[in-house]
């Protein structure tokens, strides 16, 4: 369902909950490891026994500052934790500790690429908070089961401005943010396990209007595909509702992947009134410039800086440089390959983004698990560059390398795949082919170009793909006198 409307404009903003890569909870020393038996990681603070007090995890603050630096944002020298009050069984305190008026990270920005165009999305803020537990609605004698292992897991909620104007832009922003939080190593990015969850605010307005329409919030999208579908459906629904003379009411909606539709969670929702106030159990968080500098020293070089480097050092196009910096592991792999290869970087780029990416995708592997190491790949590239093998044979060798059959050189030796560049040998093969294909020869002489390609194909076949294609062309033309 492609969205293309000349009358309406869609306005999108995202709230992203990123689970921080700490060992312990944000306000206690309980583990946050995924997949533990229910409530075995729910300590006195997690289950909110009376009299317990929260103590802030330094690493969570460290992560927040890292994000702030990565999106070029103001880091608040003083920020405050607040209680967000609501009642739900998986929130045993009756409030969530979050940040409200004074968040740790202020206005920042993230640049995305959509359809070859760059666009900067402003990020309003990012604040630290604790996750809630999980409610399990299975059959427990008509009751609901509560697992508080997740309660108190550190989250950084990253809120964008409503700067996106299409589902494609929203997905590009979410992907970029997803890449960035993994790049700076503050989040594992695992969407299935809920480490990176997006709420998307969607509204529409007549084109040219500068007033925002009423928004509906699509909750808990855990894949980019669903995000795209949900936004497209929701946009279409809002436009149709308005064109039919209806009005949009502010609501929270859920996306159903089976039907591809969004639906309001409750028909009449009591307006949320969270009665935020500063949490008296926590003192203001002070972040000194010394702390910020300490964090800055641990920051890796950011994707856009590496991208620029790839364009300058290796002469890559922006598209290639962007693709090769989609994760640190890919960028590192590419650099290691280029270093070991020493030849044309574009050839290395093509193989990393082509055969390697395709194989990893096929086998659902991360690049760190690639059986073909940068050194092995470089060995193959060297033989392509010095014309020992043709491109077609290279693919065959690559498959063998992937299957663990050794280096390119040893495979070439073992299988006798060395390209035939000896002109005498090529001439001999060409002569055989000319004799055996007299009809084709006649066609070529009658001026049919297709027949010439047919002859090239026959020669390649006769040489088992090993003849140097450029030489075959030359010898054939000579022999045929064309």
């Amino acid at each position, binding site marked *: 369902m492609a969205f293309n409307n000349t009358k309406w404009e869609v306005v999108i903003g995202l709230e992203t909950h990123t689970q921080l890569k*700490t*060992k*312990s909870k944000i306000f*206690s*020393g*309980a*583990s946050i490891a995924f997949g533990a*038996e*229910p*409530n*075995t*990681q*729910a*300590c*006195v603070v997690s*289950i909110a*026994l009376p009299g317990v007090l929260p*103590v*802030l*995890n*330094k*690493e*969570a*603050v460290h992560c927040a500052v890292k994000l702030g630096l990565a999106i070029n944002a103001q880091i608040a020298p*003083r920020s*405050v934790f607040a209680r967000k*009050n609501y*009642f*739900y*069984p998986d929130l045993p305190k009756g409030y969530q500790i979050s940040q409200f008026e*004074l968040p740790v990270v202020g206005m920042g920005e993230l640049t995305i690429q959509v359809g070859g165009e760059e666009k900067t999305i402003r990020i309003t803020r990012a604040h630290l908070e604790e996750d809630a537990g999980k*409610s*399990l*609605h299975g059959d*427990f*004698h*008509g*009751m*609901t*089961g*509560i*697992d*508080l292992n997740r309660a108190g897991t550190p989250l950084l909620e990253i809120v964008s401005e409503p700067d996106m104007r299409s589902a494609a832009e929203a997905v590009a922003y979410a992907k970029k943010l997803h890449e960035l939080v993994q790049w700076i190593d503050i989040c594992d990015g695992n969407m299935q396990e809920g480490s990176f969850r997006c709420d998307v605010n969607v509204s529409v307005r007549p084109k040219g209007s500068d007033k925002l329409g009423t928004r509906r919030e699509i909750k808990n999208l855990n894949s980019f595909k669903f995000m795209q579908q949900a936004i497209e459906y929701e946009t279409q629904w809002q436009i149709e509702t308005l064109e039919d003379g209806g009005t949009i009411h502010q609501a929270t909606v859920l996306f159903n992947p089976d039907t591809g539709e969004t639906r309001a*969670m409750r028909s009449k929702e009591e307006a949320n*009134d969270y*009665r935020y106030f*500063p949490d*008296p159990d*926590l*003192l*203001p*968080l*002070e972040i000194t410039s010394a702390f910020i500098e300490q964090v800055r020293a641990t920051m890796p070089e950011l994707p856009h800086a590496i991208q620029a480097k790839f364009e300058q050092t290796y002469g890559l196009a922006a598209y290639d440089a962007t693709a090769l910096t989609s994760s640190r592991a890919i960028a590192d792999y590419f650099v290691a390959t280029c270093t070991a290869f020493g030849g044309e970087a574009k050839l290395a780029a093509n193989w990393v983004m082509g055969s390697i990416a395709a194989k990893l995708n096929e086998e659902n592997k991360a690049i760190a698990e690639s059986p073909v190491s940068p050194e092995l790949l470089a060995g193959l590239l060297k033989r392509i560059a010095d014309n020992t093998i043709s491109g077609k044979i290279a693919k065959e060798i690559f498959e063998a390398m992937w299957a663990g059959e050794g280096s390119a050189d040893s495979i070439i030796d073992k299988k006798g795949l060395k390209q035939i560049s000896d002109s005498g040998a090529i001439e001999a093969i060409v002569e055989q082919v000319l004799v055996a294909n007299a009809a084709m020869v006649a066609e070529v002489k009658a001026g049919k170009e297709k027949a010439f390609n047919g002859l090239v194909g026959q020669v390649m076949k006769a040489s088992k793909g090993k003849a140097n294609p450029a030489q075959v062309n030359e010898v054939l033309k000579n022999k045929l006198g064309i």
Partner: protein
Amino acid sequence: MSLSSADVKRVAHLARIEVSDAEAEATLAKLSGILGMIEQMQAVDTSGITPMSHAQDLVQRLREDVVTETNQRELFQSIAPLIGNGSTEPATENGLYLVPKVIE
């Protein structure tokens, strides 16, 4: 700022406190008194003063990111609230705490 009995009931509902009409009236008088006091304080010129967010003028201490808690599920669940209807068993099953059904 004047407060109505309905405001008191709403605040009580948000805090999940049950109040009778008589209690709401009595509470209204007390809360109005407190709001009156706040109004008096608001007359003071505080421009140029940074608001405090805590009564103590200190900053938050940070904890090193180390797992220090061990699994005490059995201990905690042995005192989990009891299910009603005469049952004496703690409301737990398969390690989960049980609560009245939450309707989504």
